[in-house]
């Protein structure tokens, strides 16, 4: 009985997906992040062929937002497709250029990174749409200066559905605007657990899922292992991560 209900449900889901003109939301289509609780919340993982928005919780966390986008792209690019990074003058002035050696150290293959330098914001959307539609691109990362409206993101969402890649819109601040993205994440850097020598540990992200079309929301702290190119659950790594003692993010949010 239980099994037939599940079958019925998935058949219905496929039917609805066909009516809505999108692919059925299947686990094979999703990019597993490797953390069970996060993947379960997302319904299997970060959906391919969809847009995802990443917002830093404050300007100080821009590096973390870029880092999380890169980590997701590195996971998506495992099968040999390229990752396209759209570079705008504003983003370069604000948070710097993507740095080749750093990308390599972060677990990225330089041969798989394509950088497109775009000056006009209208071209940013055009490049993003073209790249999302391309089958040879595993992920597109854009640092947006202006918040595109619902129509623009809807257009991008349609393009990425054809291409089947990962569209990652990295904003430079939290925005309340509506968009056609499937998920929206608020990202902050989390304090890392020092390594055995008292140095910096693995990169840690404090993720808050603030929008999810296919499931509930949540908040997690996860680590990125640049050597194995995998996310780690801090609870399952060799020691439990200390809970953040001060909630500076709240103060930041109050401040603006």
């Amino acid at each position, binding site marked *: 009985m239980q099994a037939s209900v599940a079958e019925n449900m998935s058949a219905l889901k496929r039917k609805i997906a066909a009516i809505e003109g999108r692919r059925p939301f299947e686990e094979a289509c999703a990019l597993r992040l490797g953390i069970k609780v996060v993947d379960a919340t997302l319904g299997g993982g970060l959906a391919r062929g969809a847009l995802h928005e990443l917002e830093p919780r404050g300007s100080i966390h821009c590096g973390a937002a870029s880092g999380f986008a890169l980590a997701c792209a590195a996971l998506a690019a495992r099968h040999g497709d390229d990752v396209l990074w759209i570079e705008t003058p504003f983003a370069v002035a604000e948070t710097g250029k*993507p740095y080749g050696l750093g990308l390599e150290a972060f677990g990225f293959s330089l041969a798989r990174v394509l950088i497109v330098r775009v000056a006009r914001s209208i071209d940013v959307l055009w490049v993003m749409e073209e790249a999302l539609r391309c089958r040879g691109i595993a992920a597109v990362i854009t640092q947006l200066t202006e918040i595109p409206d619902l129509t623009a993101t809807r257009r991008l969402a349609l393009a990425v559905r054809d291409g089947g890649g990962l569209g990652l819109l990295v904003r430079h601040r939290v925005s309340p605007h509506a968009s056609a993205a499937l998920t929206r994440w608020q990202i902050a850097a989390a304090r890392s657990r020092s390594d055995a020598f008292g140095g910096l540990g693995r990169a840690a992200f404090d993720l808050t899922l603030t929008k999810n079309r296919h499931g509930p929301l949540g908040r997690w702290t996860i680590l990125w292992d640049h050597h194995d190119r995998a996310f780690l659950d801090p609870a399952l790594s060799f020691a439990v991560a200390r809970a953040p003692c001060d909630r500076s993010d709240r103060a930041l949010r109050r401040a603006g």
Partner: protein
Amino acid sequence: MVVAPIKSALRLTAMNDVAARLGLKLGMALADARAMHPRLDAVDADPLADRHFIESIADWCDRYTPLVGLQPPDGLILDISGCAHLFGGEAALVCDLVRRMQSHGFTVRAAVADTVGCAWGVARYGTQAAPLAPPPPERGRSPTPALSRDRRGVDRERPSPGAQERADLSLSGRGGVCGTSIASPLCEGSGDHQFIVPSGGAGAALAPLPVAALRLASDVVTLLGQVGLKRIADLLAVPRASLAARFGTELILRLDQALGVDEESITARRPPPCYVVEQRFADPIALERDVLGTIQRLGDRLKATLEQHGEGARLVEAVLFRADGKVVRLSAATSRAIRDAALVRRLFAERLAAIGEAHDPGFGFDLIRLAVIVAEPLDPVQTGFDESDHGQALSELIDRLGARLGFRCVLRIKPHDTHIPEFAAIEVEARRQWTDDRGRMTDDPLSSVVCPPSSALRPIKLFARPEPIEAVAEVPDGPPVRFRWRHVLHEVVVAEGPERLAMEWWRDETGTQLSRDYFRIESREGARFWVYREGLYERETAKPRWFLHGLFA
């Protein structure tokens, strides 16, 4: 009438027929001319504008042959070998050229001959009536007293019978140009001439012409005149050895070139394309959709030719000839050899979108040409039924982005052998280059990628210009305890370092570059930065400065 300062006086450098009939001469001082006719109208010479003008005419002449050479200041030379039959023969070609030029308001002198020298001389100094039907005169403009006069000549050459046939059109516009517009009017007096020197008739055609028709320096012409050698026939009668001894070898060279004894090549303005197809329109087209549709149809025709030769295009050029004489050139490069017309069309759609308003169709285009400038062998590839080729999709994307934004904006990162952080990663064009300096095919830009020189952790984002920060350190050599960046104070919780990078002494010519101590630090919020102290305390500087250079994830 055009004047220019020559030998400390304003002298006439060009004039129209009306002025010529008044008895004025070139080289005359403007003051003398005004003394004869006080109401003369004169404008200053503008050699640069003349140059641009003749180049735009040369662009326009590309419709007849891809080999067009400039003969500054006022002539053009066209190699029409193998092109004449496309226009129904040499006579028809010259007729068409002269008629079109006249409709733009020019006086044209054209000559077709076997050699460049002969065509040049006959176009400028020929006096016999043209042995072909005169073109229908299209005059209707009112004569204006003082303006420019342009002349033009068409010549053809055939070096030796049996050899590859070549022909040259030379067109000459004598005199300066009022303004730069093609519409500069002229009329009055028929300067128009068309000559066709029959093959092998160079000697006969040149004989009655003055020696100046040999492209000689003016002092040589004067010298020849002083000894009574006024016509080329006179020169031919004199033994060559004595001519060379008396007047130098240049005279002999020019004579041989004109007669076809010596080779002379035309310096083409552009490299001739590998394959060309074109479409003419009786009625000009202006809509972008029509232009792109034409490009696709032409692309289909190119595809058949390319397939026959087993080649694909790496650089395609579309030339749009506007009905009023302006020529728009668009080129699109590709990262791999292509033949597909739909792809070509898409590339040019991006090019048109990129230049936006710059390709004003005006009254429309009456000729569209598609040319393959660089071709590359392309073997047929077997494709699967289901899987689309991701590599091909990617290279097509790179081509489209490059066509729209320029290939300088589509980049890959390549490590570079230095330990100075900002130079250790450089950006190279993602497109595969087709040839290197020696004309060989180069490899993929990423094939020569070496491993990063250092395995130390580097930030994912680097500021092009390190941002100054105010930092406080517990000890002068130690890591910062807190620092202020962009007006915000950050407290450092964990710090790793220093990693000391000294500037490379073999590149540091002034010896003023300071060493840097880099620290990886984590703030209380968890954000990570890459900061450095410039200058070693007390050894290099008394007051080290702090900079923030990058962001970690």
